């Protein structure tokens, strides 16, 4: 095998574009275009703000999932974990109200971040120390967290104390310079996530562990520690999502976060991160989360899709989005 001794040449422009990177944004643009054609109200500021705000929970959790999936793991427990930490947070805040008043909200936020991190650590340690497939571990903890929230609520709901309802409300319904708070929170989470994943040694190692565990090990990287950290980041992201979620309906129920794990994984994959690990794409993930919520919104806004077929059409759109990416990769 001889080496190609061709002189270095500038690659053509089309080759320098990374299609995987911008694929999700093209899909998003196409979807918005389709939306405007289907119903002009789609582009109304209120509707767009509603849709993007709604996508915040999935987006925030999916940023964490990008770390886990990038490092070669998988977390199926995020939906139940969100419900569980939400329940803990509300019960704690309600208990703190008599002594702390509205400051209970701050205490609750601090607590939920710790609980989220611990839940992630729990998942991570079982996966890495116990050397069990993340799929199975998080399938197990998914059941555990879901059962715990059902137990804590007796199958009903855990409402937030009335006195906290109003002071907490702005965290979901409020806005800053016209942008809803949850959107700002997801952008900040994504910025921090992107910095960690692309600009730190940890992020580099995370991608290396996911791309090839052996290479990582032979390169002196502690695979277990990196994977565990990714799960902890996931737990913290779930907690941040929970903080934005509580003020929306003011309650945790056993149906909170139901099937979020699938939406989260779908958002990550639509965003261009390979499910088998390797390079994670934070901004693609955010686009993926918005795409998912936007599809659901368009289903309601359009008049020609039978309510019975909505789920099928959503499935078809997601598959098409993935196919478009697959084929645009090698033009």
């Amino acid at each position, binding site marked *: *095998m001889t080496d190609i001794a061709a002189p270095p040449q500038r690659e053509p422009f089309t080759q320098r574009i990374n299609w995987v990177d911008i694929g999700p944004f093209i899909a998003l643009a196409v979807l918005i275009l389709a939306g405007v054609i289907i119903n002009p109200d789609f582009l109304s500021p209120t509707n767009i703000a509603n849709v993007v705000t709604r996508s915040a929970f999935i987006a925030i959790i999916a940023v964490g999932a990008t770390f886990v999936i990038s490092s070669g793991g998988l977390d199926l427990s995020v939906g139940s974990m969100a419900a569980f930490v939400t329940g803990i947070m509300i019960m704690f805040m309600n208990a703190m109200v008599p002594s702390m008043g509205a400051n209970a909200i701050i205490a609750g936020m601090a607590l939920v971040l710790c609980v989220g991190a611990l839940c992630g650590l729990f998942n991570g340690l079982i996966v890495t120390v116990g050397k069990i497939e993340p799929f199975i571990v998080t399938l197990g903890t998914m059941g555990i967290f879901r059962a715990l929230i059902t137990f804590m609520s007796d199958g009903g709901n855990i409402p937030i104390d009335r006195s906290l309802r109003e002071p907490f409300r702005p965290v979901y319904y409020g806005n800053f310079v016209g942008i809803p708070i949850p959107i700002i929170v997801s952008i900040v989470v994504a910025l921090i996530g992107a910095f960690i994943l692309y600009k730190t*040694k940890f992020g580099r190692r995370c991608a290396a562990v996911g791309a090839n565990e052996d290479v990582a090990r032979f390169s002196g*990287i502690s695979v277990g520690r990196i994977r565990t950290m990714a799960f902890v980041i996931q737990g913290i992201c779930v907690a941040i999502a929970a903080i934005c979620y509580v003020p929306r309906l003011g309650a945790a129920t056993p149906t909170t976060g139901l099937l979020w794990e699938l939406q989260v994984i779908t958002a990550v994959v639509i965003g261009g991160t390979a499910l088998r690990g390797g390079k994670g794409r934070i901004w693609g993930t955010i686009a993926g989360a918005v795409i998912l919520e936007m599809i659901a919104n368009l289903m309601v806004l359009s008049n020609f899709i039978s309510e019975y077929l909505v789920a099928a059409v959503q499935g078809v759109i997601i598959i098409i989005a993935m196919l478009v990416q697959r084929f645009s990769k090698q033009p």
Partner: protein
Amino acid sequence: MILEPAQSLAGAVPLMQLSELSKAYGPVTVLSDVNLDIRAGEIHAIIGENGAGKSTLMRVISGHVKPTAGTIRLAGREVTFNSPVVAEHAGIALVHQEILLADGLTVVENLFLGRERTRHGVVDDRAMEQIAWERLKALGSTASPRDLVRNLPIAQRQLVQIARALLEDHRVVIFDEPTAVLTTAEVDTLLGIVRGLRDRGVAVLYISHRLNEVEALADRITVLRDGKMIGTYEAAAVTQEDMARLMVGRELSMLYPPKRGVSTLPPVLEIEHLSVPGFVTDASLVARPGEVLGLGGMIGAGRTELFEGLLGLRSAKVGQVRVKGKPVRIHSVADGVDAGIGYLTEDRKGKGLLLRERLAPNLVLTALSRLYRKPYIEQKLEARELDRAIGEYDIRVRSKRLEAGQLSGGNQQKLLLAKIMMLDPQVVIIDEPTRGIDIGNKSQIYSFIDALIRAGKACIVISSELQELVGLCDRILVMRAGSIVAEFSGDDITEEAVVLAATSGGPTAAAGGDSL
């Protein structure tokens, strides 16, 4: 002596005829214009260096790879093999170099995988086990049909693989390095079987590095070099020396830098009583600056496992390890890096480089913590490091934005070397430094090794290529079945001595590094 390629025997119609056969992957040609005829009832050896195109040729013949140009005729008729299944139907079987068996299945299940015998539509286990018994016995295998392949030693697996290829009657049987993992007794049995096939009129294509085997077995010999056919020769007319010269195409001495001689400096790395359960028993060795220490032995002798055990990549029992006289405890590659030990894996693609990642991140992966004191990454600094490595190690790249997997094998190996050297190790352990790379890159790698020795570092080279070991190293340790069994230095280093020690016990059996 000038060798004339043998002429085809007039009148004898070859069973298989290859004309102008070529194979290229993109711009890289790995096989060009091969013309070969293979007769029924002959053993036809194909020899050549690593990367000469032998395996590619075999894979083309057996339908695993499609040729870019040229034709294959079988019994006078032109054929196209779109898949190995088609080739097998035409009567061509390939015994692979690598073990390709399903680990979790039993021997008999593997033998009959995809061609299970049935009775009334039900899988007939009893009949299959009976056949398996007979075939394995004929091959001299000690494996039982019901053993799980996972539990078999590597030589037994190879025999199972051979039994699988010979299960049906084939007209052409190709052996790709079948003896690499076998012991002497097993090799003798196998050679008997190969002769038996020839006597039954089967055409046997035999690929081997072991020139003595080729000399003993072959009727005709075809030599490949750099993907081109050098010629086909009657075996009786060539000696082993001729074969070596034809394969290399130049004087061997030009490939290797001049030797440095045995070093007497105080050791950099001392390993005492290291055992890796199942692979290495009580190995001790010493590496000194100023010399290249070679580690020879057959595949599976425990050479790689020794160093994986040293670096905590396998569970191991370590007596003591000293670097520059100071005892160190090593539990991971990171510890090894801190202690000044750099290890280049033999599995460059699977364990060395992230093939889908760009060059710079690959280069700095192990050195991240050394390169950056702060937690974040600076692309500019990495780009500068890449430029330096490209210059220093002559890595040829079309673009710096390429992924590591897009480089040729030789350039990948140079990148890997640069990656390890970023850590400024005191000892560099290189496992199979030139596996699968072309001769030009080979000699460059040898000169890099020479340079780092001259820079005062110690270097340990693990190699399965005898010539490389003999040509490059100043001192050689030979491992057999998990133990270090012999040591050679200076003029004692010969291919014959190393082979003998590796296969059947050397002059100084059980002599370890501790005798130094």
